């Protein structure tokens, strides 16, 4: 039996606030949630960190397993790794001013992602170009950017793991650059460095950690955008009002500059819009993502080269840890694109030289990914399948969810696996009491 707890490595759960309403249970894409004794519990290994339960909980009993801003102390060198979604939270404000606000909050370095997004785009284009002629390439390729999608595939669609593009995710490229350039400089001086990932969703706590079974590192901390927003907006407002903006010394281009191209990544379609790929699609939303993945498994969409999936509607700006509404944020992004235009700063030739050396290749092989997630459930035998059908016939249910399982089929499976008792079904209980 899988381990059950109220919290997982992606979400934190406050039992006192839970009323057992079951909203979270009904939206969980991996049926990881049950209601037992009027409290929600989670099958830990099945949590993919999508954050849908956080989104729907009416009592705010579920929150992201990010760190509190309280841990932000000045005894170490703090480096902020900024998702471009952050800029979309401040309509009309220049990205550089948002980064300046972060520096005033006490971050010594602010790393903007646009540089790494461009590297990723060049590497992706090159991979597709080189593999186009090979009939062995598993089309369509699936974007590795949204980690929830990768986990969802490992969990529900393992057949599709070979379709996941084997290029390092932008956030992993960013972390690698910081760790190889900035961290050693401070380490030589005997200073501790802590990386703070500022994220729109509960899932990107450590860019290399895809599975819940991997332990996060203590010097890498995830902050939700909504964790830092109240403090950050004060600084941003001051900066906007000031006549003279204080000058901060920065050494790397990626500490200050953001592009229109990068801000577009916050929206669904932003990853592929500027890519040099013939046939690509952008799909957003959990239901739509699952429906497309099901169809790809049936052999459809083989004429498409690349599909960008985001499980949040409208893309990352629909993430649960954002500070402002996704449509307001989208409008802010569109204004930014209009202002900055699209266009890349990096030169293709430089990136391709690095590509040739294999610097962007993801070493996460499909088999390894599968092993990280492992077999979540024991396989059902023919006998168990018969039993499940029998239970379904006895229940004659309506997916009412009163038993604490998201639907009758899942309940029947729980019964057969010995994780639930038949009498927990209200339909059955009512019928037996009538007879009795």
């Amino acid at each position, binding site marked *: 039996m899988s381990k059950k707890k109220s919290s997982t490595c992606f979400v934190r759960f406050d039992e006192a606030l839970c009323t057992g309403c079951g909203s979270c249970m009904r939206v969980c894409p991996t049926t990881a949630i049950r209601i037992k004794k009027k409290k929600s519990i989670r099958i830990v290994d099945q949590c993919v960190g999508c954050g849908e339960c956080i989104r729907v909980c009416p009592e705010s009993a579920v929150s992201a397993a990010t760190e509190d801003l309280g841990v932000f102390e000045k005894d170490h060198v703090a480096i902020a790794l900024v998702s471009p979604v952050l800029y979309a939270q401040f309509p009309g404000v220049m990205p550089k001013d948002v980064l300046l606000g972060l520096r005033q909050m006490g971050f010594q370095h602010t790393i903007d992602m646009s540089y790494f997004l461009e590297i990723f785009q060049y590497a992706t284009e090159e991979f597709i170009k080189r593999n186009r002629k090979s009939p062995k390439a598993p089309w369509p390729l699936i974007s590795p950017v949204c980690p929830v999608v990768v986990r969802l595939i490992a969990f529900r669609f393992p057949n599709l793991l070979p379709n996941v593009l084997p290029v390092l995710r932008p956030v992993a490229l960013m972390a690698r650059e910081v760790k190889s350039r900035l961290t050693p400089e401070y380490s030589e001086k005997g200073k501790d460095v802590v990386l703070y990932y500022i994220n729109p969703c509960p899932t990107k706590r450590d860019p290399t950690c895809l599975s819940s079974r991997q332990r996060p590192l203590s010097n890498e901390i995830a902050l939700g955008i909504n964790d830092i927003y109240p403090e950050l907006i004060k600084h941003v407002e001051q900066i906007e009002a000031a006549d003279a903006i204080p000058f901060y010394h920065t050494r790397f281009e990626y500490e200050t500059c953001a592009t229109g191209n990068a801000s577009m990544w916050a929206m669904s379609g932003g990853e592929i819009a500027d890519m040099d790929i013939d046939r690509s699609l952008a799909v957003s939303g959990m239901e739509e993502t699952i429906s497309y993945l099901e169809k790809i498994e*049936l052999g459809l969409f083989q004429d498409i080269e690349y599909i960008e999936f985001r499980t949040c509607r409208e893309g990352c700006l629909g993430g649960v840890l954002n500070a402002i509404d996704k449509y307001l944020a989208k409008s802010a992004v569109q204004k930014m694109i209009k202002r900055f235009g699209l266009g890349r700063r990096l030169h293709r030739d430089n990136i391709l030289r690095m590509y040739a050396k294999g610097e962007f290749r993801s070493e996460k092989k499909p088999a390894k990914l599968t092993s990280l997630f492992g077999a979540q459930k024991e396989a059902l035998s023919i006998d168990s399948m018969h039993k499940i059908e029998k239970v379904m016939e006895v229940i004659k249910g309506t997916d009412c969810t009163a038993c604490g399982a998201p639907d009758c089929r899942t309940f029947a499976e729980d019964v057969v696996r010995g994780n639930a008792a038949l009498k927990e079904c209200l339909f059955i209980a009512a019928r037996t009491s009538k007879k009795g």
Partner: protein
Amino acid sequence: MSKFKKSFHIRGRDFIRAGEASINVQNLLKSMDFDSRLIRRVAICGYESEMNVVMHGGDGSLSLEVDTDKLILEISDDGPGIEDIDLAMQTGYSTANDDHREMGFGAGMGLPNMKKNSDQIRIESNKDQGTVVRMIFFLPGGEIRQ
């Protein structure tokens, strides 16, 4: 009890829900932890045949039978039937209309694709008497728990 059988309804002309029966079959096989390549073959055959029912047939059903040594996929419908089965099996032969082609179907690959992905295929059909397609996938042994 050695066999497990379950069937799913297919609604003719319902292009929105087309594929659901195959997805259900696929999910069943996944929960029984069959080899992923085998599941893919069954899924492709299921989808191709399901689309044939949706395009040409009336109502129909897709059933999966899990036995210890084989899987059997059977698709039946009450549609127009196939006049010349040998002709229908030829790659590129199609009776799809323009509407079907606009949606990307009707390349004449359906039946050949099913033949390629299954170990045995049998088609029973007569004009105006519906069609039954039965495909068998042999299990090399040891996959199934009793």
